[in-house]
């Protein structure tokens, strides 16, 4: 039997209101959140079977490419584990990822950046973690891109991640950055996270050991979801 999910550390996450990231100003709730222990409604969550996945879902180099083509750019493998705060692997977690192409351009009708579209790159993929919480995908390294915020703000190269754990309370969206990128520390969205130690949790390490010779660089990116209390000496009410 397991108990409630650990309280979220809201000093570790970015606060809602971060004026340096201008869009947050009108979208940030100003009232205090209502705090509640999780209930069965949050301690459960949807599950996705491996049967939803196609063979190229985790291969962004080829999953949108036409006629045997491949996406242009620095070939990389991104891999890692999904764990919880108790350091246990989260098996069967659906991990979705999306990104700009090697030139920093998204395939989206509202995207206006002048960098070229890559006809062989869609920019989305997904994977489900195995029994040890592992996932992996192949892609091209996304480019940095300018965005309307300050007069001349740029996003560092990044990949967006959406993760489902075992419980809806664990639902998380975040972004992965790349080791050694000096643009990380200039980014208003990165800087919504107050603690540099927390930002470092989002910087994937270049892993020379997992590099595929004559093919792809490798980056390791572990993701941690909320953990859950054990129920030591707790009386559980009937029906729980």
């Amino acid at each position: 039997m397991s108990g409630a999910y650990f309280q979220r550390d809201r000093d570790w996450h970015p606060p809602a209101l971060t004026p340096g990231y201008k869009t947050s100003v009108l979208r940030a709730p100003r009232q205090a959140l209502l705090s509640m222990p999780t209930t069965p409604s949050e301690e459960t969550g949807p599950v996705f079977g491996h049967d939803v996945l196609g063979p190229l879902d985790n291969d962004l180099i080829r999953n949108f490419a036409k006629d045997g083509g491949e996406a242009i750019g620095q070939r990389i493998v991104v891999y890692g584990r999904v764990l919880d705060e108790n350091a246990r692997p989260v098996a069967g977690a659906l991990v979705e990822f999306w990104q700009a192409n090697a030139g920093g351009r998204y395939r989206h009708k509202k995207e206006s950046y002048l960098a070229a579209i890559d006809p062989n790159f869609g920019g989305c993929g997904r994977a489900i973690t195995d029994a040890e919480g592992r996932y992996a995908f192949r892609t091209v390294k996304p480019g940095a891109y300018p965005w309307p915020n300050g007069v001349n703000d740029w996003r560092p190269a990044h990949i967006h991640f959406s993760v489902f754990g075992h419980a809806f309370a664990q639902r998380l969206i975040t972004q992965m950055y790349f080791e050694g990128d000096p643009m990380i520390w200039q980014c208003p969205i990165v800087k919504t996270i107050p603690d540099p130690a927390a930002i470092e949790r989002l910087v994937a390490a270049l892993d020379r050991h997992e590099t595929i010779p004559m093919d792809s660089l490798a980056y390791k990116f572990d993701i941690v979801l909320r953990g859950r209390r054990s129920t030591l000496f707790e009386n559980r009410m009937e029906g729980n």
Partner: protein
Amino acid sequence: MVQRLDYLKESPSQTAGPYVHIGTNPNWVEITGVWKDDLGLVLVGPETVGERILVEGRIIDGSGALVRDALVEIWQADAAGLHNSPTETRGTADPAFAGWARQPVSDADGLFRFETIRPGRVPFSGGGLQAPHVTVWIVARGINLGLHTRLYFGDEAEANSVDPLLNRIPDPVRRATLVAPRTERDGMPVFTFDIRLQGDGETVFLDM
């Protein structure tokens, strides 16, 4: 020095950004051929047990403008109050009801709309029953950490009056932000759940 507590820290959140739908609903943004159907589009099939209802609403920012680039997910129990989840411990949920769905809000009118069923009652952590509710989670550009809230049903006054979460909200105006009023359309109950991110009528968001 003391023994170490070997907990990890949760990965910090970052905004879903303006193009979240590339990852979650690629077909909807015309990235076709990668996978066939976007996940979470349909909740209810002919076999699903329960009263058919519509849940719809808009997301409104602090200036009163509609948010048109959000992603909304819902998660709820089946008609008997059970969740279709491996972590459900109280019984087996209706296999014809996934309980989870998601939608991009419409570019045109900022509307999200889910055809679902009225959920049964789910126990509270400390005992007793909660009023029927739907868990709602929204992400968008400018939202740094996904916002959790709950929809309660406007025609469940009796259950709502003893709901432990609603009863933690002393201000009736704030409490009302979680209770979706009922109307009817073509014989189907419609529950309207407008989410106000900020300012007058700001929705109650949850830290759960």
